[in-house]
């Protein structure tokens, strides 16, 4: 018995220490400059931090079949990539860009959801995002040197591999060009014109590509297919492309006139590949060879395919929240949480006395754990999510109350205090499990059918809250109550363990 008591008390102390550790994690991870744990701040949703939320519907009805299949997921992924690079050029920190598939009235709808924290200039955001992606082939300008053009382009897009356009079947590994004298003068010319642009925003392209390339009239609409192949002798990945009949003629014309020049491929105004033309290619089938990794080749082929087939997007919903509104909502939610906690604590203390105090301690632990979980998962907190958290604080007491009421009954039956506590917990468990199950069902269904981040946030916090509260009610409250080690059910102990109104 004595040994057992010791064990329970050690567990209680360990729990307390653990609680304090989690509490200091909660606290110090909010303070900047604390090293590793500063990587776990609370993540606030747009309704609390301010920003813009845009929902687009992708119109995939005209997405032609390429290579015999209609890969809508691929088309959406490519679209997402394009929009992401546009937003990065816009200079937003931590944007969220995701594609969603949903069915409305039996029709499948593809959505693109964009969240821009801190951005409240809606019109500018819409203008930046809203264009349909365009794929263009552009030839280097008259009178420029291909090396200089390549060098200049690559300064901006360091990831571009040296590449060459060759006819199908031809093998060319020599894609590098010697740097000529013209290169340095070209670069200095570009630098002098673009310094101002570069200093204002590093995210926006600082090179004016129209100085380097001119339009050819060859665009993605003439492209029939693009796929990854491997060179039969070097095993090097290649991207093979095929033009339709009109494209074939245009391409033959361009390649015939411009051997040795760069025919860059632009997606949405940004170069995605800058192959040099090696020969005239008459049959409309070309290979872009270069030092690609298989992934790079795959990405290029994908962008070529879907850039070739523009996916029009329509704006179907927007939401913009000013920073002040978000700030106020956050402050109000925190206030509500603190007041809620305080009022509940007073009630628990007045009604349940000593066990009430234990319930408050376990509620505190519950709160501390929840905050840590929000940081670790991380859960994007919205006003609805915080409402769920406050609601869950009220509900988390439920387990304790069930147990205390049971305990009181067991004591009334004449059980010793310790047996009463044990029996109370054991019997209450089934009720706790069953009654929480319905909340869990609700939360899970809500989560999967939520249409907005607000409701998803609510469902997630609600679900986590119910699960964690089941744990804290059972484990923590029991350990603390037993650790108090009140022996007899008389006098002060009797007063402390009884509750409310005499019945």
């Amino acid at each position, binding site marked *: 018995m004595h040994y057992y008591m010791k064990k329970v008390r050690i567990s209680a102390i360990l729990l307390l220490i653990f609680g304090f550790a989690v509490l200091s994690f909660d606290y110090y991870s909010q303070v900047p400059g604390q090293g590793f744990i500063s990587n776990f701040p609370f993540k606030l949703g747009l309704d609390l931090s301010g920003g813009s939320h845009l929902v687009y519907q992708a119109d995939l009805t005209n997405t032609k079949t390429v290579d015999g299949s209609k890969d809508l997921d691929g088309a959406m992924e490519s679209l997402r990539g394009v929009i992401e690079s546009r937003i990065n050029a816009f200079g937003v920190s931590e944007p969220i860009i995701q594609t969603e598939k949903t069915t409305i009235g039996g029709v499948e709808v593809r959505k693109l959801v964009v969240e821009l924290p801190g951005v409240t200039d809606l019109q500018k955001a819409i203008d930046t995002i809203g264009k349909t992606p365009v794929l263009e082939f552009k030839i280097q300008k008259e009178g420029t040197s291909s090396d200089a053009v390549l060098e200049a382009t690559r300064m901006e897009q360091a990831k571009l591999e040296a590449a060459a356009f060759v006819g199908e079947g031809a093998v060319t590994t020599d894609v590098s060009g010697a740097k000529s004298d013209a290169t340095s003068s070209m670069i200095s010319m570009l630098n002098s014109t673009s310094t101002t642009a570069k200093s204002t925003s590093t995210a926006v392209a600082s090179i004016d590509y129209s100085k380097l390339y001119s339009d050819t009239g060859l665009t993605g609409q003439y492209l029939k297919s693009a796929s990854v192949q491997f060179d039969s002798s070097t095993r090097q990945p290649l991207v093979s492309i095929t033009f339709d009949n009109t494209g074939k003629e245009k391409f033959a014309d361009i390649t015939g006139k411009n051997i040795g020049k760069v025919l860059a491929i632009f997606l949405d105004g940004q170069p995605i590949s800058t192959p040099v033309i090696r020969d005239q290619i008459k049959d409309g089938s070309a290979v872009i060879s270069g030092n690609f990794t298989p992934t790079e080749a795959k990405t290029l082929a994908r962008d070529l395919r879907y850039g070739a087939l523009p996916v029009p997007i329509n704006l179907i919903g927007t939401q913009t929240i000013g920073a002040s509104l978000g700030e106020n909502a956050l402050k109000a939610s925190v206030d509500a949480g603190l007041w809620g906690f305080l009022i509940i604590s007073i009630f628990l203390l007045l009604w349940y006395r000593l066990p009430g105090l234990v319930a408050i301690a376990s509620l505190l632990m519950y709160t501390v754990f929840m905050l840590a979980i929000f940081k670790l998962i991380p859960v994007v907190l919205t006003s609805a999510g915080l409402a769920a958290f406050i609601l869950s604080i009220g509900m988390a007491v439920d387990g304790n109350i069930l147990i205390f*009421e049971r305990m009181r009954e067991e004591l009334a039956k004449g059980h010793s205090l310790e047996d009463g506590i044990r029996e109370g917990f054991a019997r209450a468990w089934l009720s706790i499990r069953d009654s929480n199950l319905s909340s869990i069902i609700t939360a899970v269904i809500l989560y999967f059918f939520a249409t907005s981040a607000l409701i998803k946030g609510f469902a997630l916090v609600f679900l986590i809250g119910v699960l964690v509260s089941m744990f804290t009610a059972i484990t923590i409250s029991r350990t603390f109550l037993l650790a108090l080690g009140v022996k007899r059910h008389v006098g002060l102990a009797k007063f402390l363990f009884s509750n409310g109104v005499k019945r």
Partner: protein
Amino acid sequence: MFVVKYRKIFYTLSILLVLFSIFTISKWGLNYGIDFKGGSIIEVEYTGVRPSHDDITSVVKDSGVTSEIVVRPTGEKGYIIRTADLASSTMAVVTTNLVSATVGTSTVGTTTATSTAGATTAGATIKRMDTVGPILGAELQSKSITSIILVILAIVLFITFAFRHVSKPVSSWKYGLAAIVALAHDVLVPTGIYAFLGRSGGFEVDALFVTAILVILGFSVHDTIVVFDRTRENLKLDDHHKEAFDKTVGKSISQTFARSINTSLTTILALIALYIFGADATRNFSLILIIGIVLGTYSSIFLGSPLLVTFWKGQKNK
């Protein structure tokens, strides 16, 4: 237990509440927000004296909005403006003009400038602007209906499963039926009250309202189950059915009485704090939850379990 004895009084009260709700819902219908029917909302707050209601309406109208314009004052210095869903360019014009609108002017300045939410120019702030297109509205409608049906189905299955071993003297599906009657009551009445508030106070049915209803669904069952659970346990203890069923139910209610009230009370305390101190966005949400949870507690004690006794009496008289 008085609850069982006077159950007809409580039934009457519940029936009256349900009739009231059916009346308000059928007479006034629900006031759907832009989440559901699509549209635009702009909330603007002026730092000085706010322009008059009519000024705001004409500013919005002159900015090129042809649909119906509903302007409601909010707080001391703000307005909430509702229109049909606006193109982003129109929205920009409207917000620019709202920001530059001052007391006594209804004339509109240039219509080319872009607007910025959160920017304070000329003593006004656009606090938020939302636009929901018809597709998103349709999506929310269909998903709301699906999730409500799924939650109800899952809960019915769950009750049937949880009480599958109880068959004497009332069969397990009747527990399910009683729980569902209580559940319907707990959802209908807040909806009816909301229809009433929608009529008198402009409360709108939005995604959060649906969420609140689903939470109430879960809660209602949660409370009812605790009492049923006790009845199940007491029946088990009383192996030889010495005690009449109505006595067992009465005993179960009184044993769980404090618990039912207290757990709901702590939840309601939390929600009251949320209602008073919490964000504007969740105020109506917390109100509807408070109503729903009060009703859920009421129905678990005064409706669900007494119904078991009524069912038992019904089969005895056959």
